[in-house]
């Protein structure tokens, strides 16, 4: 049994040690599963630069949606004697991308893993403060993390002179957010952490140079950080071997919608969409037919039947005109009206727009009005092209941050793949699904 557990933990490093009852691993259990060995190893035998290099060599790419190489992100932080201090590490735990629930699972089940990952990131960039930016609804995650933080402080994995070292101290705190999608955008997050509205900031300067309170700051997603202890403990080569493609590691994939078994599973990065959808989610529920999916949250482009054999990795999905995003897919079935679903998506983005830039603030409500007209049977054929024109005006380069381009992705692809359904609304002057 012990041997099998070990094997499981090597194949599924993020979730293999979870308790069966869904309660969070406490410190003793986490240590028994190899927890904090990586932090010990790093402080004993690795320079901060070595930790950065190992993460770079592992090909770990950010799991929050953008897929930026993590080691490279860290390397932009200025180091050296006269580099600015203090520096900060922030875990982006504001999981608000619709359809996404993977970070919650990690924090609820293994809070120490996030803490150890953050401690290693802090060591790698020379940070002395760390914040977990947690969405307010994640009350169970907050409880698990509070317990783990207290235990970690007591055992000196955090605090002054971590593990007796005379060169590394780290304070870590939780910031409970008050709810706004914009907080997930890393510069919006930093403004929110400073007690302001979560408006995006101009880039450059990037947070690594001028972030929280104007000091060097690294913001990483929860799943990204949770991978770090395993990379340091088992090495970059091992981490790369977990994946089926070029990028390293496993991925927590998920599926929601009318599938038989909605849920999340840690699988090799590059597992095909079909294996996740049919093998793990059990395929469609009886009486429902598959029509399409958004591979990684509400801001990723729809994919359809012909894409099902694609590997779920960053490059394959980009080539297919979509993005892996958060890797938690939303399934569209044949009994859901594609226009109605689009209204749900665009209403979300319109409501969550911070209002800072005009195309997003004015364009998204306009899109919602147009969609509502089509859904209510009052649309005209030109309205469909008007939607495409609006989406074009929200593309990257037209707006201040990625929120509106993220809204345009499901709109453009939704019209592309389901145009006939939009046209039927106009021709029949009603919603063929009986909605609206």
């Amino acid at each position, binding site marked *: 049994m012990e041997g099998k557990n070990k094997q499981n933990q090597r194949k599924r490093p993020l979730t293999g040690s979870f308790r069966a009852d869904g309660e969070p691993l406490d410190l003793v259990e986490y240590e028994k599963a190899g927890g904090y060995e990586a932090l010990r190893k790093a402080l004993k035998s690795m320079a901060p630069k070595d930790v950065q290099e190992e993460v770079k060599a592992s090909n770990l790419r950010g799991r929050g949606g953008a897929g930026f190489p993590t080691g490279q992100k860290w390397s932009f932080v200025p180091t050296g004697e006269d580099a600015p201090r203090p520096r900060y590490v922030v875990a982006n735990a504001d*999981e*608000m*991308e*619709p*359809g*996404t*629930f993977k970070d*919650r699972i990690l924090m609820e089940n293994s809070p120490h893993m996030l803490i150890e990952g953050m401690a290693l990131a802090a060591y790698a960039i020379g940070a002395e403060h760390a914040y977990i930016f947690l*969405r*307010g*609804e*994640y*009350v169970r995650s907050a409880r698990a993390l509070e317990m783990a933080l207290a235990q970690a402080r007591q055992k000196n994995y955090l605090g002054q002179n971590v593990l007796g070292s005379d060169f590394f101290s780290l*304070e870590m*705190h939780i*910031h*409970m*957010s*008050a*709810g*706004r*999608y914009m907080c997930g955008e890393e510069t919006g997050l930093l403004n*929110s*952490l*400073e*007690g*302001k*509205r*979560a408006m995006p900031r101009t880039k450059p300067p990037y947070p690594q140079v001028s972030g929280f*309170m104007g000091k060097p700051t690294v913001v990483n997603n929860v799943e990204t950080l949770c991978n770090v202890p395993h990379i340091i403990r088992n090495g970059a080569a091992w981490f790369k071997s977990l994946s089926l493609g070029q990028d390293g590691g496993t991925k927590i994939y*998920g599926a*929601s*919608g*009318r599938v038989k078994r*909605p*849920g*999340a599973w840690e699988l090799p990065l590059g597992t095909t969409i079909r294996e996740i959808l049919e093998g793990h989610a059990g395929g469609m529920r009886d009486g429902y037919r598959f029509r399409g999916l*958004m591979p990684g949250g*509400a801001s990723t482009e729809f994919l359809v039947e012909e894409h099902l054999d694609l590997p779920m990795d960053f490059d394959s999905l980009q080539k297919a005109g979509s993005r892996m995003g958060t890797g*938690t897919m*939303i*399934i*569209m*079935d044949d009994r*859901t009206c594609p226009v*109605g*679903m689009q209204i*749900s*998506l665009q*209403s*979300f983005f319109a*409501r*969550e727009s*911070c209002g800072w830039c005009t195309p997003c603030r004015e364009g998204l409500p306009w899109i919602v009005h147009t969609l509502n007209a089509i859904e209510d049977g009052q649309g005209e054929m030109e309205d469909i092209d008007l939607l495409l024109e609006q989406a074009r005006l929200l593309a990257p380069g037209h707006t201040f941050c990625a929120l509106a381009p993220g809204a345009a992705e499901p709109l453009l692809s939704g019209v592309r793949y389901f145009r006939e359904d939009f046209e039927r609304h106009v021709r029949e002057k009603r919603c063929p699904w009986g*909605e609206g």
Partner: protein
Amino acid sequence: MLNEQEMAEVEKELAHCENRKTGCIGALKAVQRHRGWISDECLKDMALYLEMTPDELDDVATFYSSIYRRPVGRHVISICDSVSCYTVGYRELLRHISERLQIGPGQTTGDGRFTLLPAACLGVCEKAPAIMIDEDVHGGLEPPGKVDEILDRYK
């Protein structure tokens, strides 16, 4: 005026903050836990306490969706209307709750027991459709009648 307990909880929120202003979101949430919502008077008192102008604090208070600048009922029901719940019974659930409580989104029941608010994805999409009542998440509410017994628990 903030009472002693409120002040103590605000100070706890501010303890690890860079300055009083950076802690204002946590402070608003702490006071709201006692009062249910943030009134104009409360906002002015808090601004003074946090060394901010009332406008500065209102700028923040009106931005975040779980800070309430209008009165709410004893319990707040946040119903997820995002895409995963939308495809799995959100509309039926909203209709059911609205009919049962005789309120639509943004409204409070006559007896002040519930306020119903639309919410962005609650992050429990594997248990769609889902709602949150105060700090408790309830998922898998299909058929929507399942919610009746849950609502009964909140007095």
